């Protein structure tokens, strides 16, 4: 899977058709996604809103190559992810996707800089770890271990780690879910800045409606379907958002 680094805005980077995901636990079948038709353009900042159980995380996991759809198809640029095997999905995650999780998922035995290096060591043409950390405003905290950083700082390290590979897409699952409003704003600031400067298509999952104001585009999930979506005529700056 090889996708050019510089895609002009407007290129479709993600496309799904009739995407379904059914979880089977014993006799019980849970339909998490009931036929999602979706597309995202390169460089877009998209917020996916929805209550718990609406299917938004499942959707993000499939886009990120962490989970496999039951039926339908997912295209990343012109590659069909539903046909990719385990190895191809690993390469896809490694080369193109940056993840940011609710609980940071940093390696506790590595410093901030080393956590970023962990990723830059395995990809082609990465940023320097210092550059990535500077982008999220952590130049002076680079040599601290996770346990020495605040929650917001840890999340920014996670963002730096995600963008250091210059990903085409940045997938964030409740990135501010564990943070208070002020700290969360810093993290969102970092995300918008990265989106602007690196150009990575950014998908942010949240159930926090306030955050949707900073997106180019907002998609609402409910009961495994896209219930509505809209384009923000004017985006708010992260500093203006609070919850």
């Amino acid at each position: 899977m090889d996708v050019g680094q510089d895609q002009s805005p407007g290129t479709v980077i993600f496309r799904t058709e009739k995407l379904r995901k059914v979880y089977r636990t014993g006799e019980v079948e849970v339909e998490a996604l009931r036929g999602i038709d979706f597309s995202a353009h390169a460089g877009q900042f998209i917020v996916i809103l929805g209550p718990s159980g609406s299917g938004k995380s499942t959707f993000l996991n499939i886009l990120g190559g962490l989970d496999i759809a039951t039926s339908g198809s997912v295209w990343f640029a012109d590659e069909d992810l539903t046909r990719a095997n385990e190895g191809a999905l690993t390469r896809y995650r490694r080369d193109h996707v940056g993840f940011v999780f609710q609980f940071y998922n940093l390696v506790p035995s590595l410093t901030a800089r080393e956590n970023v290096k962990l990723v830059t060591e395995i990809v082609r043409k990465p940023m320097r770890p210092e550059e990535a950390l500077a982008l999220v405003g952590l130049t002076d905290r680079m040599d601290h271990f996770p346990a020495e950083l605040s929650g917001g700082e840890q999340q920014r390290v996670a963002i730096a780690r995600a963008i250091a590979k210059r990903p085409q897409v940045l997938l964030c699952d409740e990135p501010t879910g564990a943070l208070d409003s002020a700290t969360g704003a810093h993290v969102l600031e970092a995300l918008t800045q990265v989106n602007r400067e690196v150009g990575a298509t950014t998908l942010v999952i949240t159930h926090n409606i306030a955050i949707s104001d900073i997106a180019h585009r907002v998609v609402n999930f409910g009961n495994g379907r896209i219930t509505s979506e809209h384009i923000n005529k004017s985006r708010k700056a992260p500093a203006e958002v609070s919850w």
Partner: protein
Amino acid sequence: MRALHLKLLRDLVRLWAQALAIALVIAAGVATLIVGVGTYDSLSRTRAQYYEANAFADVFANVTRAPEALAAKIAAIDGVAAVEPRITKFALLDIDGMAQPASAMLVSLPDIGAQLLNKVYLRMGRLPTPGSDSEVVVSEAFATAHHFMPGSAFRVLMNGKQRTVRVTGVALSPEFIYALGPGDLMPNPERFGIIWMSKSAMAAAYDLGGAFSNVAVRLVRGASETDVVSRIDAILAPYGGQGAYGRKDQLSHAFLDGELLQLGAISEILPPIFLLVAAFLVNMTLSRLIALEREQIGLLKALGYSSLAIALHYIEFACLIALMGVAIGIGLGLYFGAEITQLYARSYSFPFLVFSRNPAVYAIAGTVTFAAALLGAIRAALKAAALPPAIAMLPPSPPQYGRGLGGLLGFSARLNQSVVMTSRHLLHWPWRTLGGVLGVAMAVAVLTGSLWTFGATEYMMDYTFGQSNRQDASIAFTGPKRIAALYAAEHLPGVLRAEPFRMVSVVVRRGSVERRTSITGRLPAADLTHVVDARNKLVDMPPSGLVISSALAKILKVQAGDNVTVTLLEGDRRSFEVRVASIIESYIGLSAYMDIDALNRVLGEGAMISGVNVAIDDTAQGQLFSALKETPSAAFIILTKVSLKRFRETLAQNVNVMVTIYVLFAGIIAFGVIYNFARISLSEQGRELASLRVLGFTPAEVSALLLGEIGVVVLAAQPIGWLVGFGLAVAAANAFSTEIYRVPLVVEPSVYAWSSLVSIGAAVLSGLIVRRRVRRLDMVAVLKTRE
């Protein structure tokens, strides 16, 4: 069933592989103890009962020719309970279909009344008719080797005359449990047997009418053996008495005792170590395993369970695993114990077997195991239960990696982050790392401590047969012969070279310590036999003075240059002082050598020889054997190479089987430890590793991280394991040493290599299993859980 019990069972099912691995480690420890101690105990008891039931004598004496009346004199000695005067002789046999000459010890049976001492135990057939010179009873192993049944016939060369005898019965005797031919190191029933025959018939053949040539004596309880021995010596001396001796110097008893001592030594050293190692590992593993249950412990507390109830729950968990291990261990122990005991019993020709089921062994095994399991469980469970439930329910907070570690790894900037992660991880929990290293080291140590005996025995055999006794065969004469017998031997068909030796039974004494042995007189320039010191250097025969083995020197506490007193047990029974000229190495028996001329000068009988060592042309072996069968003066022939082969076989059968079982159990321990270490590491780091998978690390890269850690632990453990293993070998070698047989402390590099190979193999296998689990790490779940 209560919910907590259901949880217990489900947990066991969920963790079945790890629980089984721990149980197997326990089982290996328990089984070793049961096999080792049980086999030793069973054989000791069997021997004791056998001796008692068949009235094995306490004192024995050989004499040239003693009148029957002396038996009554011996019976009158204070402390003597029973006396059996007998005739015993070595004789060459001629058996159809067997090219090599076989030999036998002829033992007389009383013509009137039953045997009082050393009673034969008839396995089939009947005793010979009193007075019959053609009926014999043969020892069972010998009969089996030749497929003899009552009715079979063969020829015996008795006092220069060949006669045909018929087998009437097959028997065992406590006197010949170890039926060792002269010069043989191990029983070789094909080439040597015991033949019982009517006393009057033997007396007629050997011209011993109204006389005896051997006497067996049983003592009353508490009688002084030393006193009785010296009284018997005094009575027999004028008749060519060769010195009475106790059971300690009775060949069969001494060899059996040596082997049992060795077996006892192995069971005293290795199994307790196995058990302790198993206990240590179980303790370590269980406490780590339960530490992983922290969240569940918090939940149980939140639900209102008391710390005690929770601790009990995990104690039950540990107990179930321990119970499983002990049960498997007892099963394995009983099975292997019975197999091995029977193997030994067969090689010793015991008529029956007393299985020891010593409850103390089971109690010790059970107590140690449960204590170790419980301590491990309680420690971890209480630690977790002590936390407030809200905190316990969360995974442990991210550990604080200190500046110090950062500084220590100051060069980390240039290192691969995987290496940094692995090393920080290992250094951050030094005790756990150390525990893992020690555990694997112990596994390596028990392997080294049991594997070394194979090479050491091989070394001993090479030393004994390759360097010292290089002759193809030794021909012993019925008594001392003039030197002309050497020239006769040189002209036997197939003999390429012959070298004479003189052998005389003696007591060597220094101060209050004395030992019965024999002095071998050899040519200074002898090439078929060499005398070699501990550094493998040839030792020259001094023109006068004694050369003794280090084992004898140690017992007598003498060094080169010291004088010892030698008392001849033949001829004029003179005592003389002689200087110890040098000390040599020898692993079998207590040997002493002199220049043959010097020995003959001391004996004062002129140039006499007891036999010849020969090099044989293999192609002419058959002719040599048939010539020997017709040589009246040849008492027996020792085929050195056959001895060696037999020695190897018997060793393979006895000691090696035992050691093989130890090696097997050591292997199980190694695997159990390493597998658990790997699995628990995976559980502890599962979240971190799954996050890396999400970030795009391949399963191989993630596995490498985990396996790297295991690898470091396993590699660091090797040298420690070698060192401890060498210590075990030292302890075992010391315990193995008996006066009859010593195992040299030779731990070959291959022993270390094999120990490492087995432990590393176990690590690789565990790694492969763990790698499969890394592939199945749940990446999605990881995103949803908190640190």
